């Protein structure tokens, strides 16, 4: 009787120690689900979802506070991936958060720029360089096309230019020809 109790107690102690050790040794930093959602989001940091960046939106989705269809730059494909990851039903992009647009780049008309630095403060990824009363310019490779710099410019010198296809970014077309019904008038 006593031996059995001792064995059980010893087992409990050993297992408890092992679990305690594992909890410390293999602790998972951060929320892996948030990380996974964040990896799907396009990192435009545009705030169109109503959150101040992709990470806050990912956190909100993980907590169930936001829906999966609030990210216009991620588009249809992004929603499908999120639905896949979270095991939810696909739903079309919510209209109040915007529409999916082709990827564009902010371009500053350097003749008209007055050097007010407002766009530099608005840019979430530090893609605009310049100083007060000096001309500003966009670092094209860093620009995510979030459009946050466009409304803040007091002289409207920032335009969004769609990225043109070139030889290196050109993609082979999908070889399947879809058959569409002919609509008669």
């Amino acid at each position, binding site marked *: 009787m006593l031996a059995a109790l001792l064995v059980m107690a010893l087992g409990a102690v050993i297992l408890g120690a092992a679990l305690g050790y594992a909890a410390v040794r293999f602790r998972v930093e951060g929320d892996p689900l948030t990380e996974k959602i964040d990896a799907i*989001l396009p990192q435009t940091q545009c705030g169109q979802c109503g959150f101040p960046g992709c990470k806050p939106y990912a956190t909100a989705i993980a907590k169930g506070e936001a829906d999966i269809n609030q990210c216009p730059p991620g588009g249809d494909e992004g929603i499908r991936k999120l639905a896949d990851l979270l095991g939810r039903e696909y739903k079309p992009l919510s209209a109040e958060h915007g529409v999916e647009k082709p990827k564009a780049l902010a371009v500053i008309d350097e003749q008209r720029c007055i050097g007010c630095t407002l766009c530099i403060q608005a840019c979430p*990824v530090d893609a605009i360089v310049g100083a007060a009363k000096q001309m500003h310019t966009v670092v094209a490779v*860093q620009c995510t096309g979030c459009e946050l710099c466009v409304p803040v410019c007091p002289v409207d010198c920032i335009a969004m230019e769609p990225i043109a296809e070139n030889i290196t970014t050109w993609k082979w077309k999908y070889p399947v020809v879809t058959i569409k019904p002919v609509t008669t008038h």
Partner: protein
Amino acid sequence: MEVSGRDHQTRHHTLTMRLFDFNGGVKPDYQKEASTQTPIAVSPTPTFLVIPLHQSIGGTPRPLVSVDDRVLKGQRIGAADASISGDLSSAVHASTSGHVVAVEMRLMPHPSGLSALCVVIAPDGRDEWIERKPFDYRYHTRDETRDYLRDAGVVGLGGAVFPTHLKISSGKEDRLDTLIINGAECEPYITCDDALMKERADAIIQGVAILHDLLAAGQVLIGIEDNKPEAIAAMQAAVRARNPSDMEVIAVPTRYPAGGAKQLIRVLTGIEVPHGKRSTDYGVQCFNVGTAYAIHEAINLGQPLISRIVTVAGNVTTPRNYEVLVGTPMKTLLAQSQRLPDTDCLIMGGPMMGVALPSDEVPVVKATNCILAGSKKLFPPPPPEMPCIRCGECATVCPADLQPFELYWFSRAKIFGKAQEYHLFDCIECGCCSYVCPSHIPLVDYYRFAKSEIWAHESEKESADKARDHYEFRQLREERETQERSARLAAKAATSRTAAMAVPETPATENIPVSATGSATPAALIAAALERARAQQVHPKNTTDLTPAQQAEIAAIEARRTEIRTQAHPHLPLDD
């Protein structure tokens, strides 16, 4: 495997050497005789040369010339830009002397029909060379030789245009067991390597000797398909003339795609390079015969790569090989070979792997091994695509040992992750699977689609990761700045407070009540601040120290003002 050779030498070599075999492959109609009847012709210099800056794998070289510059033949017009693409690019040169007419976007020999930056040169007809100096690699370091080859624009001429200098490792000495020279040229219609080997075997062997030295290779195997007996004989004569004991010309069985690098390595050495490995991991490196010739020209003659042999074949009256300056518009060549009137398409490369060209205006580039004119009769449009019947014929012929039908399903369904698991990127796009498919499915089109989608996804992912880093860094910086600002403000408030405490003799701060902790109460601080502000108030200086005359004048003015006011508004009381 025994292979019949034409002369005794071939038989001797092939009998002593055991050949291996690769799986799959097809035997299409070769159609090579027509263009091999006549020797290589020199194509005429066109009115304008359009030289694309981007001709190899890697970033676009930076243009070194501008409009109206005079250039000499062999002058570098585009330099590999280390700041953009690192080492991974190769230079381009003017193919003849003349003037730069434009540096602009021109249509490229690419299936997209898009344009890229080109240097347009109007030749002056003098064909004046730059100063040509041989480069003795034995007196230079390996890095210098690499840089020389990069600046001479030497790239792989087998079709992939991989910069040759990247195949020579920079740091340590290579120790290759086997150097393979690829003269197999397995695709139908293409005969440019055949013509080069027949006519310039000695120059090729000189280039091979340089590679042999540079890479410190144990043995050199030159693989040529056995449907090119004249080329095999010429190459063997050239090897015998130089008499190296470790260099062998080997006839390999004719079967498409024996000229694929991995396939030729397997046939000659029996080494099967597995997925994710390179042939150099197994001590084998492969170069095309055209590349060896270009290396000879660059190193022994000091001539950069400005021309290549191009086969013009298909729907033309006189198919043949031309030595063409890079940048020559394709229509110049097609005019030489007299394109037939019913030509309805142009293909760069062969019928198995070639790509359709958007126009005949596009220039010949370093990758152009063949220009194939097509017609409805020659290449009838494929029958309509039918559903896959899972016959497995494609898997039987796949030389890369893949499962083409699986790749097809995953590519068609856009399940790219699965396609990659089935080693989509091991596909060499040889076209054997499409060739045998009884349902006429353009399988390679699906693989090309899937590959370019995956590349686009990867580059998108990369830029998203960069954007995340930038965003997180900005968050961090903003937080730090806020902290610094509040720390600065707190420090300032503390100093002003201690300053206010430290000057009790000021009349305004005399009676500040002090709280129990020893610091002034907020109400007392406000009172003190108000007092200080009052003390600082500026009084007008022109109302003090007035002379009696001035005071009298002021009084008179005030009296007049009162009088005027009473006259203007008699009903109003005087306001002062």
